[in-house]
């Protein structure tokens, strides 16, 4: 300790580790600043929160009256976060340090009872009178004395007590993994085609994990699909905001277009034409909203409209890139992610959506581009796109709303 800081009320802290961002060279500060903005967005409900940058880590002060757990819970799903830990911050000399070390496991031993442990010390403040090794050894001795059933295992311990000797002492042992990835906002904007199903929220999650800011578009076909489906899509969007931050949801009144497709196109091409119309409207909206790409939850071969030929037919009608992060992902893995991010239970609510209402008995699985173009020859496509764009209701789905309504995963 270079100076004695006798602050009896050091705030509780949450230590946030950032991984990939630290490799970003000269742009690194941009990534860090964006991450901190995103963290503040998730912490809105806590009022003013102090956040400190500290080399490759970020320290968040737990505001008075809030719990460390609540702050960690709000931060553990922010993309760019590698892990979070509750951090004990101490001022004082080595006696103060070891007094804190001796009791560091009291809580843990009451709860999950680890059997083996290890102490790791980093000495940044080289003026400290003991070496890292000496600190670890003494701390290990103290803990073994206090909990005789606890033995040291340096290779594969159940728990590691980290001691960092800086201008103050940092103690932590609990490390909760974050979602990793890049901070949302660093990779431009994309328009997600969101349905009520399992795949599209996962696709959005994957793109957001690479730093993309999402807006979403949903095609509503009332009265074929009820307002309960729209509510389901809203709920999915709300759950996603945990990861994406606030997100725009655009709802297109698609019924008239759907009926026109029904009456004017051959039955075995209905799904392809419907997908193409959705892509066209989504692209136009994306342009307006300054989104540079479209995102869908399609996975190769999953259903008739997701064969390679069908995807070629839908891609052909748009010029912006269409990202399909699940294209090579097995359904089981998508379901696993869906469960992990908390969208699964909502996705499987039993309401018919447009994909299930308007399906031909035997849709064409390998349509040619020519066949798709021919199927649309009776449609006034420009007119239908305009109609779609004129019948959009947009709303902002906020992280904060989810917290207020008490909806959690």
């Amino acid at each position: 300790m270079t100076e004695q800081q006798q602050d009896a009320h050091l705030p509780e802290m949450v230590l946030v580790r950032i991984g990939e961002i630290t490799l970003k060279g000269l742009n690194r500060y941009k990534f860090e600043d964006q991450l901190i903005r995103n963290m503040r967005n998730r912490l809105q409900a806590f009022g003013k929160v102090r956040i400190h940058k500290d080399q490759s880590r970020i320290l968040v002060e737990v505001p008075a009256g809030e719990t460390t757990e609540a702050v960690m819970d709000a931060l553990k799903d922010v993309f760019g976060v590698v892990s979070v830990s509750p951090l004990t911050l101490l001022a004082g000399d080595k006696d103060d340090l070891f007094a804190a070390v001796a009791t560091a496991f009291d809580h843990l031993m009451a709860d999950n009872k680890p059997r083996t442990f290890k102490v790791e010390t980093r000495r940044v403040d080289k003026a400290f009178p003991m070496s890292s090794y000496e600190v670890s050894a003494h701390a290990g001795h103290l803990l073994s004395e206090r909990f005789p059933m606890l033995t040291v295992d340096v290779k594969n311990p159940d728990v590691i007590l980290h001691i960092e000797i800086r201008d103050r002492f940092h103690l932590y042992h609990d490390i909760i993994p974050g979602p990793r990835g890049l901070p949302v906002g660093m990779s431009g904007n994309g328009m997600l085609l969101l349905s009520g199903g399992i795949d599209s929220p996962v696709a959005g999650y994957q793109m957001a994990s690479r730093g993309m800011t999402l807006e979403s578009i949903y095609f509503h076909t009332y009265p074929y699909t009820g307002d309960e489906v729209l509510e389901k899509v809203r709920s999915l969007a709300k759950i996603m905001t945990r990861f994406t931050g606030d997100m725009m949801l655009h709802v297109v009144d698609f019924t008239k277009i759907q009926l026109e497709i029904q009456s004017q196109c051959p039955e075995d091409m209905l799904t392809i034409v419907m997908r193409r119309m959705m892509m066209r409207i989504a692209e136009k909206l994306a342009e307006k909203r300054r989104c540079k790409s479209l995102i869908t939850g399609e996975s190769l071969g999953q259903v008739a409209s997701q064969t390679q030929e069908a995807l070629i037919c839908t891609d052909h009608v748009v010029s912006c890139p269409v990202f399909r992060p699940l294209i090579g992902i097995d359904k089981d893995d998508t379901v696993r992610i869906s469960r992990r991010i908390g969208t699964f239970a909502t996705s499987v609510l039993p309401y018919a959506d447009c994909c299930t209402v308007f399906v031909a008995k035997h849709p064409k699985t390998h349509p040619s581009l020519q066949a798709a173009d021919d199927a649309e020859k009776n449609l006034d496509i420009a007119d239908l796109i305009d109609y779609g764009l004129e019948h959009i209701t947009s709303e902002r789905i906020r992280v904060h709303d989810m917290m207020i309504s008490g909806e959690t995963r």
Partner: protein
Amino acid sequence: MTIYLDHAASSPATRDVLDYYRDVSFRHAVNPSSNHQAGKDAQAALAAAKQTVLACFGASKATLITTSGGTEAINQALLAYETPRRFTPHLVISAGEHKAVSVVATHLEKQGRRVSVMPLNRAGAPDFSAFPLDPDHLPTCLSVILLSNETGAITDIEGLVAWRNKHCPDAVIHVDAVQAAGKMAIDFDAWGIDFLSVSGHKWGAPMGVGFLLAKSVTHLAPLIRGAGQQSGLRAGSENVPLVAATAYALQQATAQLPDNLANVTALKAKFLSLLAERNIEYRLISPAAAAPFIVTIAFPLMGETLARVLSDHGIFVGRGAACSGGKASQNSALTACGVDDLTVQRAVRISFGKTNTDKDMVALVDRIEATLAQFKTK
């Protein structure tokens, strides 16, 4: 103005019935189990109301247990009936039962009870003559729905009792009359059945009360225990005004049975003739012999969609069957009587009551016609 055509789901109480409920509430604002004079007066009113209910169902010798509704009455009968020790319990239900019965049966089966399902005949009623009897495992309890909530099909109870008497005389018969009560004559004693479940709000009583009629309570254990009300069979303070109003509404419904049946028969005929007049494509799912109160019918449009559009125009009908992700519910009585999946998905349930008029039928058919013109699917 709205047009209510979902009487099978619940038949709204009239102002007269609600006034009666309010009057009794003021008159007997005490616990009928209290020992003071006011309590005794309330108990007397309650007993009189129960006698009225028993009389309406031709059940002068039965015991009446007041419950929270039809589902509780059914649970009381099926879950809490203790089969005499000399028999191995074997519950037989029909394939057209309401979930209040079928889910209880599944629950019992999971607990190791032998449960069998009796198929439906083409008219949508339980086909007991086609039920394979195993002499080593004769049924000990038969549970059938009297009037199907999904199709309006009527079970031949007298035929079932004769069949029971001949083949498995030791089996008790539980009749789920939740949909039937207040719509058709029920003759509990004469039929020779053992249990009958009913629910007040189906005949125009306020919601929240049902009854189980039991020929004998010897083998009946309580489902709800507590301070021993209703001879220990169903604990909890009894709701005098609610039971009284329910009896009052039942008395009215029973007196009006023939008129109501004639009215509803005419409504159904009017409805079908209007559909024919306008050349509207439809498929009647309710069997020809079904009670006219319930018309389950399919148009060339998803039932869910049609019901939604009708609702937007103030016409309230029921859905034919629950739709899960575009697939017909596995439990549907419609599927059980051989209706294909597409037709099941297209089904709506239109159920008439005494408030409905010919004018309602015209408005309904007008709206169906317009909806099909706008939203009909290939």
